C-alpha cells in the first residue's frame, strides 16, 4: 500500500510538471492551472499518506527521484526539450544526488 501511494504521488508530480509546462508556455486557463496546482497538491497529499506505511526519508527519496526524472523525460519526449547528452547526464547526476541525500537523511 505504501509503495502504491508513493508511485501515485510520483505520477501526480509528473502531471504537475506537465501542468507547469502548459501553464507557463501555453495558456494560463483554468484547465492548465488545475493540472499544475492540482498535480502538485495531490502529489504532496499522496506522499504524506504514504508516510503512514513507509519510513519518511525512504518514501521521499523514491518519490523525488521518480518525479524529477519523469518530469524531465516527459518534457523531452512530449514537449521537444533538448536531449543533448550533457543535459541527460546532468539530470541523472541530480536525481542520484537528490535520491541519495534523502535516503541518508533520517
Amino acid at each position, binding site marked *: 500500500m505504501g509503495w502504491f501511494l508513493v508511485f501515485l504521488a510520483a505520477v501526480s508530480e509528473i502531471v504537475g*510538471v506537465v501542468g*507547469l*509546462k502548459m*501553464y*507557463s*508556455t501555453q495558456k494560463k486557463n483554468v484547465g492548465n492551472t488545475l493540472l*499544475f*496546482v492540482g498535480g*502538485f497538491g495531490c502529489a504532496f497529499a499522496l506522499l504524506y499518506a504514504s508516510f503512514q506505511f513507509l519510513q519518511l526519508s525512504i518514501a521521499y527519496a523514491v518519490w*523525488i527521484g521518480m*518525479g*524529477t526524472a519523469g*518530469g*524531465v*523525460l516527459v*518534457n*523531452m519526449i512530449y*514537449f*521537444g*526539450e*533538448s536531449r*543533448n547528452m*550533457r*543535459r541527460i*547526464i*546532468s*539530470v*541523472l*547526476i*541530480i*536525481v*542520484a*544526488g*537528490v535520491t*541519495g*541525500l*534523502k535516503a*541518508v*537523511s533520517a
Partner: protein
Amino acid sequence: MSKSWMYVGLTCLFELFWVYGFNVASIWWHWVVIVGIIIVDFYFLSKACEKLPTGTVYAVFAAVGTAGAALMDVLLFDAAFTIHKVFFILLIIIGVVNLKLADNKSEGEVG
C-alpha cells in the same frame, strides 16, 4: 545572468522559506503564511519556465530544495552532518552546474 535565471533563484529561495516554515509551524496562522509563500513560490516557478526548459527548472528546483532542506536540518535543527550527506550534496551541485552549462550551450534550440 538572465532574467529567467533570476526567477529560478527566487523560486528556490521561496522554496527554502516554506521548507523552513514546515519545520517551525506551530499555530494555525503559521500555515496561512506558509500557503501564501507557496503560492508566491509557484508563481516564480511558472515565470522561470516561460523562457527556460521546464525540465531544467524543475530539476534545479528539486535539487536546491533537497540540498537546502538537508543543510537547514544540520545548521538550524541539530541534525548530524555525515560524510554521506556531503557526498550527495556535492553530487547535486555538480549536476546543477552542468545542467545550467548544458542549457547555455543549447539556448535557442529549445522552444
